[in-house]
């Protein structure tokens, strides 16, 4: 079962930085265990381009689809047995502490 992990900022992050785990350890451990399929950081949404096509005409907008306080700053694709395993993986990601993480299962046929 694949889960998309949206890595986001949060307006109320963990204040005690000593409690935030190391991201490199997380990547190494989950890569080795085969639970992390891929993932990366993203540049800030100010560099985003929104693409729409209406009536055959290409419409480009500078910036993100919607302005929000919490923005997606990265993603990881996980391969896990079930939601409980995905939650266990997500909770040890540094941004679960310094931000927030949204887990979304891939669509299954």
């Amino acid at each position, binding site marked *: *079962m694949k889960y998309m992990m949206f890595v986001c900022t949060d307006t109320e992050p963990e204040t005690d930085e000593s409690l935030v785990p190391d991201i490199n350890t997380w990547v190494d451990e989950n890569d080795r265990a085969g639970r992390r399929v891929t993932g990366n950081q993203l540049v800030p949404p100010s560099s985003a381009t929104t693409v729409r096509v209406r009536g055959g005409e290409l419409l480009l907008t500078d910036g993100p689809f919607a302005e929000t306080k919490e923005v997606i700053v990265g993603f990881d694709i996980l391969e896990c*047995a*079930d*939601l*409980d395993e995905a*939650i266990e993986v997500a909770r040890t990601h540094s941004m679960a502490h310094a931000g927030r993480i949204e*887990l979304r*299962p891939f669509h*299954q046929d």
Partner: protein
Amino acid sequence: MGTPVDVVVTTAGRESHTRIVATLIRLTGDWDLAEDCAQEALALALERWPAEGVPNNPGGWLMTVARNRAIDALRRANLERRKLSELASLPLDPPAPAHDDRLRLIFTCCHPALSLEARVALTLRTVAGMPTADIARAFLVTESTMTRRLTRAKDKIAQARIPYRVPSGAALNERLPSVFAVLYLLFSRGYDADGEPAFADEAIRLTRLLARLMSDSEVDALLALFLLQHSRRAARRDADGNLLTLAEQDRARWDLDAITEALRILPSTDGPYALQARIAACHVAEKTDWTRIAELYDQLATVVPSPVVLLNRAVAHGYAQSPATGLAMLESARVGGGLDGYPLALAAEADMTARAGDRWRAVSLYEQAAAVAPSPAEQQALLRRATELSLNGGG
């Protein structure tokens, strides 16, 4: 002899519903199918038993019929053979493993990835077998809204793959509060002055089931706490329906069986529910030991420093030591604003103010509490105290 067949069916259905649904969900992974098959088995029993007699093992009969219905349905849907062979090998009289299934069902319905309202609805529908229309009425939504809520919860379980499993090790302790929250909300819903009394019974039934299925002192404590509070249900109002304080209640109307059971299972551990249950036990004792209650609240406040616990701690010290001590503690409990607009905080302040001798200020506080009381019954009880106090000084 003499028990009407429909009563036998209802009782057998109630007792075996959770077991049947829990087992069929494990075997088929299909929540709706499991519920439908349990329902159909019950309907067939109502049709057959009056003519053919009640079988020796009504629960086993219902399980067999429900399982066969599930096999038929899956066969029609042409599902994979593995599930079918598992179903066919299910023993006729479900033995011990079925217990695990019921526990699996409870933990899955109460998974913290579901919202609290979804957990409560799903638990009532699937574990307790309560009709959707009844759940909808209790939560003041339409039946179609409740149906959608249940469907969304079941869809999330399937799509996000919430496992059908009892968590183990450290995860079990982490997940239990999520189950307790559901049971507690259910019980409160039944216990509130204007609530649905059937929900309190249902909460007790489910907690008792949980206590039978797993060994955990906090589960026993929660059951004891519910039983102690519920034991006073018949004494909480006078003949005119007015709410009575503990001191005003007729103890002869308390449910002694419930109290005896609660005191028997009351654990001596220090978890938050164990402490609350021991406090509740102090309140049903012949003579209320306020010093002991105050000590228990001191302990509870270190585990759960919530505004309501701090309020109750102030009240306990207000009796154990002096109203002035209680008022001072209430003052510090109010820091942070957690008790703002909370009628019980105003009522407690009124009571302690009256006992400290400031009668007119107490009357005004009771009136302020009544103005923010959540139900007419509570409003009247508070106004009654204001009136008594202004007429005769409150005795």
